[in-house]
């Protein structure tokens, strides 16, 4: 993965977790997961989806506007073989609805959805840019959201019908709140064991 410096978090049933500042254009993973809002809201930062959409010359926003992918909460769209400059083998868009911000349970559920998809397609490396850059999280919610994301991923692994196999899963970190998030990821993983 061509991302910012990666920090290992730990592993669970064959899935090794790390955190990094994910560069959506440089990530060469099997699967790049990006959250997308249902509509552009005044002043809202679209983060990863915005960067991908820009790189794909507005494809994502036009698909959404045309009703092909509405970005409703939990709606998913896989795009195989996205055009350069996207390097990931498959791009997975996850609809985050209209107001995901600050709801750890919702973020956790969507992370579980992404993990299930990754397991189903047999991805060996995943970059998950689902929430952080989409949300203006108050400091108090950074750790609960990180913990919920980790729990969502772990629950999906446990629920998977099949044997574990090696996968590298990277959560995106940014917003200047990396340390509390990393600590929360680690604590949630330790508590799960």
């Amino acid at each position: 993965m061509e991302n910012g410096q990666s920090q290992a978090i730990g592993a669970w049933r064959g899935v090794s977790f790390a955190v990094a500042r994910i560069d959506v254009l440089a990530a060469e993973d099997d699967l790049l997961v990006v959250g997308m809002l249902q509509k552009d809201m005044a002043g809202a930062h679209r983060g990863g989806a915005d960067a991908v959409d820009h790189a794909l010359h507005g494809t994502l926003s036009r698909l959404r506007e045309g009703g092909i992918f509405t970005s409703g909460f939990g709606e998913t769209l896989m795009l195989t073989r996205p055009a350069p400059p996207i390097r990931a083998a498959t791009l997975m868009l996850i609809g985050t609805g209209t107001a995901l911000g600050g709801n750890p349970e919702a973020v956790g559920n969507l992370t579980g959805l992404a993990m299930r998809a990754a397991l189903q397609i047999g991805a060996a490396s995943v970059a998950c840019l689902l929430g952080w850059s989409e949300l203006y999280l108050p400091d108090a919610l950074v750790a609960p959201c990180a913990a919920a994301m980790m729990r969502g991923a772990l629950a999906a692994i446990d629920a998977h019908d099949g044997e574990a196999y090696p996968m590298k899963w990277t959560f995106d970190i940014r917003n200047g709140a990396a340390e509390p998030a990393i600590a929360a990821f680690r604590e949630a993983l330790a508590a799960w064991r």
Partner: protein
Amino acid sequence: MLTRTSSGRAPARVTAPIRILLVDDHMLLREGVRAVVSTQTDMEIAGEASSGAEAIDAYARLLPDLVLMDLQMADMSGLEAITAIRTAAPDARIIVLTTYSGDGRAIKALRAGAMGYLLKASLRNQLLEAIRSVYHGGKHLDASVATAIALHVLDEDLTEREVSVLTLAAWGNSNKQIAARLELSEETVKGHMKALFAKLGANDRTHAVTIAAKRGLIEL
């Protein structure tokens, strides 16, 4: 980077395999897909059909988890079959597997209820990936098709009359002949031509036919 999924490994399954109905009028294609699916433990071919009518019948009889549907078939188009299946079974999960990369057919198929659209040139693991993700409720598009869709999804659609006019033009009919065939005045046909030139960004009728055929807006 770790090993890519092109290894085609199948997650070991404890639950029942995904039952697939394969619809294509070319036996060789069906054999190829069957061979790919047979290597996977989490999916199986539940049945095959070589026409749209057979597909509708087979769907009702087999109730598969997922349909792989060709678009171009002799008796009934895949689009009509998708519409019929989804009318009878609104939750039917259908992936179009086609040679057509134009946006016209893709948009129609997705609006008819298809949840995936793949090209027959797709790699083996892309097909398997699509089957798994659509089975679990997601949508799956070849990215080149998604790009083509995005370019035109917000355009104004051609009307049925405009499609009829352009199809007749594609077969070499003059405006006068088109007017006679459709029982319209020649002026009305000219009006339709002007409107569809504008919608397609075409300079003349040949250009319009070329664009529409390439995008899958008319059948030739």
